[in-house]
């Protein structure tokens, strides 16, 4: 085998589209847009009255309630996967902070 010739970089290759995950990303974006439209239409304002937020205020309903655990989790996984970020934002929608 001619190692010299095989070691020359191939500068002509092109990227392959990764359809399945990109399709999922597009679907997620469409779903998010729909959700944003519903909220913009005003359904979010009256969704839950203040007196009905007992369960939403429970710590098991708050996204990333333990901030340190969430950070450590992201730290571990981002070092074992090729796609970091986009985990979301801590907190809940109870509006009772």
């Amino acid at each position, binding site marked *: *085998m001619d190692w*010299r010739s*095989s*070691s*020359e*970089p*191939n*500068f*002509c*290759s*092109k990227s*392959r589209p*990764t359809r*399945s*995950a*990109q399709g*999922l*990303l597009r679907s*997620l974006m469409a*779903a*998010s847009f729909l*959700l944003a439209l519903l*909220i913009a239409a005003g359904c*979010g*304002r*009256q*969704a*839950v009255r*203040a007196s*009905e*937020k007992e*369960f*939403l205020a*429970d710590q*098991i*309903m708050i*996204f990333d309630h333990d*901030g*340190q*655990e969430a*950070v450590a989790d992201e*730290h*571990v996984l981002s*070092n*074992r*996967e*090729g*796609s*970091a*970020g*986009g*985990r*979301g*934002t801590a*907190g*809940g*929608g*109870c*509006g*009772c902070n």
Partner: protein
Amino acid sequence: MMGATIRGNCPRRVLALAMVVAALLVIPGSTSADDRADFTTTYYFENRRGGLGGLQVIHPQFDVGVDIGEHVSLAAGYSADVVSGATSAVYSVDAVSTATEFDDVRHEGRLSLGFKGSRSSLIMSAGVGTERDYSSITVGASGTIDLPGRNTSLSLSYTHNFDEVCDRDNGMLGILERKPLTGVDPCEKENGLFGTDAFDIVGTRITTWRDIAIDTVQASLTQNLTPTTNVQVSLYGQVIDGFQSNPYRRVRVGGNEAQEASPDVRGRLALMVRANRYLRPLRSAVHAALRGYSDTWGVSSATVELAYSQYLGKSLIARFRSRYYQQTSATFFKDALLYQTESTAGSFFSGDRELAALRNILVGANLSLLSVAEDDRQVWGVFDKLQFNLKADILFLDEDVGDDQFLSSGQLLDVIVLQLGVLLSY
């Protein structure tokens, strides 16, 4: 980054950070019911095939936050990575046998200043991270606003990193001639943070520092749908501009063993949708999350996560979690055998196993013990809320290409993560 042990000036920085934290704790009259101190330590252990290599990381975190009046808060934090293990020095067909031992310590400190209104908050933050061969300065801001009705929260955050990584000075050498950095190469810094080039006794530059600029933005919308259901949609974008190869890693391309070469720019986009639903009769909640990701290196991924939280009595919460992740490979990543027999895919080549097509499954459990003050009686000393967390996750890794020598350990468990945390509010 991999490398030798840390330089001797780090303990001084740790001491300085500890003094800042101590100062925050003793600010007169600054404490209120929302002040808190959290301490968590995570232990990460990873097996490697044939017992060769392996990785162990201890990651302590300490955060403290105090309110100054009704509208202003201060927070400080410190975390570290104490890493030891062995990793393959050369990405090649027999990479496992080339495993070399290393150890490193990374320190990170952060400060933030927050302003809180009746329906909005703004946090400005800054942080520094340092290790032997890498330094990072981060500045950022995040804002949250509750829309009228307080059922919708909008959040927006932005951070910028001014990072530097130490690299062997390869001058004008071609990509297949570049030599890697080694653990004995000097990586010098000014003031313990800013990298400076290192020269040998005849004035030849040995190492240099390469810049990495990282811009990250995230927008989230959190919505209450019903009294027992909430959802969150997050859009995340990041652009990394700078040297992104591992300076230590070599790749065997044909008869060459050159330092890996990655593109200088990487753009990332991720979208996550997640939801919680409280189950009243069971005093429990189910959690679901779906995440899609794509970047300009050709990596696309999908993540599905399901979890279940259950109250056991008044003060115990158990949470069970499962997560499935799958990604495609970067366009320039190839199996080691193909690099050796076919050459590269374009002008870049990498031995970073996280750029391979891979999947993993995570299962885990978390137990939280809560103690909350009632009737104005503290639960312990000055604290009115105390929470202990114990968590265990296991990861099963699988690489889609070649002989799978870089991810799967060939043993029952590939990765074990244990975590112990204490959260105190006073």
